[in-house]
């Protein structure tokens, strides 16, 4: 049985709204327009305008209203049309939501989900194409989830909505239409994926590739290519950026002795940098090669198709880095001057 990510998200929202009257949706175009990316399709008809709330284009305002409603005990799901626009509201996500339970010593919890597409999109230049996993992932008090498959999308979103803490739920626009096999178990309305646990998508013994969101699919394709060259790659789907499943990563690296991290975000202070630090701290003596990082290029996203391709990790990049980690021959490096 197959399900695409859009339907997985939509069904998760539908089931959680049906199960708990405190859950409501708000955001730009979530209601009458049926969602800019149709994730909320049909919800307005089913739950009415009190629970599927169309907002004006005022992210700081509606993010703040969502957080206030969560203080009071409702369970808002706030959609950002894309996470690029969440920068208008980042003060409410960090200062108003993430820190409240701590500052009040547990008196006021903030059960809210901020969700929407994140990461590199296609052909939209710099302001609409960026991964915010590292930004939100650095904040204690937030939980940050990055679904890859339809199973992830359903199980993680349902867990996020039921969770008593603020969750940043980073989807990927380019995955919405992708279909994945889905089990009966994952289709059950009680299906939830525990937060903070990575999933081994493919077992291997020669090199560990850690990725999240769309980069999991690239890593799996890279692993397929590597297998033909006799390299057995283990692919870890992080699912959660915070809490980060350091154990799963370190267990795998202790087995393979080699690590490649893959993300769309910028390299400096990125998710890969944190994973690298964790492995150096916990498993230094197990490493047989330097850790390799594959990231978005260290530049704003360009528009032209050829430049955009250079700015986003490609399967070839993952294959090359994995071979380097395994001390298999690769071509020489390229330096250009900007």
């Amino acid at each position, binding site marked *: 049985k197959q399900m695409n990510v859009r339907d997985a998200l939509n069904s998760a929202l539908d089931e959680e709204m049906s199960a708990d009257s405190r859950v*409501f949706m708000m955001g730009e175009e979530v209601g009458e327009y049926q969602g800019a990316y149709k994730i909320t399709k049909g919800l307005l008809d089913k739950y009415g305008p*009190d629970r599927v*709330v169309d*907002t*004006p284009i*005022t992210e*700081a*305002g*509606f*993010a*703040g*209203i*969502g*957080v*206030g*409603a*969560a*203080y*009071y*005990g*409702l369970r808002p799901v706030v959609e950002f049309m894309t996470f690029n626009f969440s920068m208008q509201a980042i*003060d*409410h996500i960090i*200062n*108003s939501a993430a820190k*409240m*339970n*701590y*500052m*009040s*010593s*547990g*008196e*006021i*919890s903030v*059960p809210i989900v901020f969700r929407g597409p994140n990461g590199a999109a296609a052909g939209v230049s710099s302001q609409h194409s960026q991964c915010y996993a590292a930004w939100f992932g650095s904040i*204690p*008090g937030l*939980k940050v989830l990055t679904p890859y498959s339809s199973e992830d999308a359903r199980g993680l979103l349902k867990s996020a909505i039921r*969770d*008593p*803490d603020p969750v940043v739920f980073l989807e990927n626009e380019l995955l919405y239409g992708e279909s994945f096999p889905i089990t009966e178990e994952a289709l059950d309305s009680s299906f939830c994926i*525990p*937060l*903070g646990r990575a999933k081994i998508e493919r077992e291997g013994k020669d090199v560990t590739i850690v990725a999240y969101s769309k980069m999991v699919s690239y890593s799996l394709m890279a692993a397929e290519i590597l297998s033909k060259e006799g390299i057995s790659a283990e692919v870890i789907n992080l699912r959660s950026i915070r*809490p980060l499943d*350091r154990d799963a990563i370190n267990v795998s690296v202790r087995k393979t002795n080699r690590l490649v991290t893959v993300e769309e975000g910028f390299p400096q202070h990125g998710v890969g940098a944190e994973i690298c630090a964790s492995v150096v*701290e916990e498993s230094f003596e197990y490493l047989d090669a330097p850790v390799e990082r594959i990231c978005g290029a260290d530049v704003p996203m360009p528009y032209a198709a050829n430049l955009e391709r250079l700015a986003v990790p490609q399967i070839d990049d993952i294959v090359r880095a994995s071979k380097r980690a395994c001390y298999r021959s690769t071509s020489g490096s390229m330096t250009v001057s900007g």
Partner: protein
Amino acid sequence: TSTALTIETSIPFAGHMIDTPSRSVSTTPSEILTFFRDMATMRRMELAADSLYKAKLIRGFCHLYDGQEAVSVGMEAAITKKDCIITAYRDHCIYLGRGGTMIKAFTELMGRSGGCSKGKGGSMHFYKKDSGFYGGHGIVGAQVPLGCGLAFAQKYNKEDTVTFAMYGDGAANQGQLFEALNMAALWELPAILVCENNHYGMGTAEWRAAKSPAYYKRGDYAPGLKVDGMDALAVKQACMFAKEYALKNGPIILEMDTYRYHGHSMSDPGSTYRTRDEVSGVRQERDPIERIRKLILTHDLATTAELKEVEKGIRKEVDEAIATAKESPMPEPSELFSHVYSKGYGVESFGADRKELKASLL
């Protein structure tokens, strides 16, 4: 002392797109005596906080409320603890007004475990959810959308209650305020935006920061009232009026014309951007406690000596609260890691040296 009284407000209300409420305020002797007692307690608490700060027993930022007391007591007289209040960092007396105790306030100010936020919030982060007080927020203006969110939830739950979202004249220029008001009006949320206009955002006079300092008119489509915020009875009248209005129609703005005697915070002597004459002039002519004292004496509700006795009792109460607060222990070091999450799933968290100090979050 239960005979009803009718008292005229100091000056008429000014209205924006709305008929103003009557200047005649119904009250009782016991309400007026309570106003006196509560405001005198607030005043004394803030003056004591000033001393504790100077004695280095309070750290960081500390914003005092003396001068503005009538806003808190007048508002509380008009509403119930099922209504919500949210404010910025000048929150000690709002907390007290919501039923918080001086002991918990002083204990929090001194960063001790018995404080209202167990020593983790400090001066700017007091809360009392069980009586509808949602803080205590440090980022200027952020509390207004948050307050409209509380009102959203009240309406969502079909409760006949409202939220008072308080902000200063400085915050009145924040963009998110207008965003929140727009949505509150579109969705007819029971939100009352209370602008405590103390005329200076830190050291910037209102007219230097606002092209239109008539804050009660700044809502454009939303009605507003300008209120003498130094007159507790006028505040009460305006808040009763606003609550009734908001429950039926949606948001309304109340501009409370008030004054802070202290500087913006403890690092501000409050004398570089305003004259001493201005401050002493307000004290002489508009002080909210003196106004009530005069009222009590004119109506023979108590004698001068009796009021002195009340003040003497308050001084003792404050001193005792401070002594009790000082006995509260500092938070346990393990508290560093508590309440990062409501549900931490046992995930690891780290101290400065992660090999030396780490914790499993509950």
